[in-house]
């Protein structure tokens, strides 16, 4: 699968995340369960694609997020989506990621991402509320949503990134 297709699929996920997800989440949990599906896709890219791919996708879609929902500061999603994807890519580069490993990595990465965003906003005094409150209020509830998403789409997404890798490596082999 070419990179264009992958980008298109993540773009569709990004659009649905903002436009469809608010209707699927019960309204009383609207500010507690927050989808970060594009971020999960970036982590998938770092697990089954390459770290550079994850960095590029993370920065690209982070920037898109920053522009679309321009509120206080720009750049937080841009930098940290790319950075976390890249770091996980380095950590697990030589390891073949199984389902359990992938899900746990996605879980920890989601907590890390939400926490980092919280602290960025805290540093600039853009958010009120203590960290333990934020953890209970939205970081942990939305973690479950991310895990369910990752579990549901694990097989097709893994195939998508791995076929891209094979496509890529066979391509370069032919060139040689």
């Amino acid at each position, binding site marked *: 699968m070419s990179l264009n297709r992958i980008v298109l699929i993540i773009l569709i996920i990004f*659009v649905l995340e903002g436009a469809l997800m608010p209707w699927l989440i019960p*309204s009383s949990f609207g500010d507690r369960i927050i989808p970060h599906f594009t971020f999960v896709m970036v982590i998938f890219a770092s697990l089954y694609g390459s770290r550079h791919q994850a960095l590029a996708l993370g920065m690209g879609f982070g920037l898109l997020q920053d522009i679309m929902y321009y*509120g206080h500061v720009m750049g937080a999603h841009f930098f940290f989506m790319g950075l976390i994807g890249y770091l996980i890519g380095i950590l697990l580069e030589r390891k073949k990621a199984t389902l359990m490993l992938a899900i746990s990595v996605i879980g920890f990465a989601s907590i890390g991402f939400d926490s980092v965003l919280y602290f960025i906003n805290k540093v600039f*005094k853009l958010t009120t509320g203590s960290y333990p409150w934020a953890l209970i209020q939205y970081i942990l509830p939305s973690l479950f949503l991310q895990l369910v998403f990752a579990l549901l789409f694990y097989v097709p997404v893994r195939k998508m990134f791995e076929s891209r890798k094979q496509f890529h490596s066979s391509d370069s082999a032919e060139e040689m």
Partner: protein
Amino acid sequence: MLMIGFLIFIVMIGLSIGGRQSLTWPEKFVKDAIGGIQQMIYRPAGAVAGFFQDMKNLNTIYEENEQLRMLAAQYARDKVEYNFVKNENKRLQDELDFASHQKEMYDYTYMIAQVISVSNDANNRTININVGSRQGVEKDMAVVTVDGLVGLVKAVTPFTASVTPYTELNSLSTAFNAISATVLNKETESFGILTDYDAELERIMMTKIGEGDPMKEGDTVITSGFGNIYPRGLQIGTIETLKVGEVGLTYEATIDPFVDLNQLTEVFVVKIPQINEDEELTP
């Protein structure tokens, strides 16, 4: 690569944190393009969800109808009263030689808008709507629903606008201006400023309330319109608690907002009439 990213990150935060007046054209283009697609999804999804909501509400519809009938009767009585007062007011304004911009100061127009997407960031809950600078929306315009105040317009592109909801009220940052407020039926005596939103309590904080202020718990808070930046008379919420503030000289209140920000569909952008500068200078 990572280093360049970090540098861009610092530069972007530095440039955007002070609050900019307008967006650059690449931002506008991206926002309009994605916003156009999201609009096609959010509304049908909302219509489907609304259908199931209606099914659920079918049993309560009789009671609601009864209430609405009473409200309509009350409205008809008030309308007669209102027409008399309005004509009287107009006559007095004519006699006192009001300038035309003074007369039109409170002629707000309500522009209907559809929500197209909602931010997935808990620290920055932005709502995008499908009207933009082409329709005359400007930065800092108030956005309301039929229930009350939602927030203020933060950024405008030709076809969309980003609304910062009241949850981002924060006296420590430059992101959101404080809003002056008063209490329904005590408009001339009460005054307070909406400065913060307490995320843990999920309540708006109103501070700088004078000691002899007649407001009490359960009153409806509305915008006062002082300063003529934000329109007056927009409902915000009810006062839940009222106590002496931190400094001890003024009171502060927590306000339970009327509007639930989840699953919004239709909102109104409140346009305040433009003050003609030339006319103001020549008496």
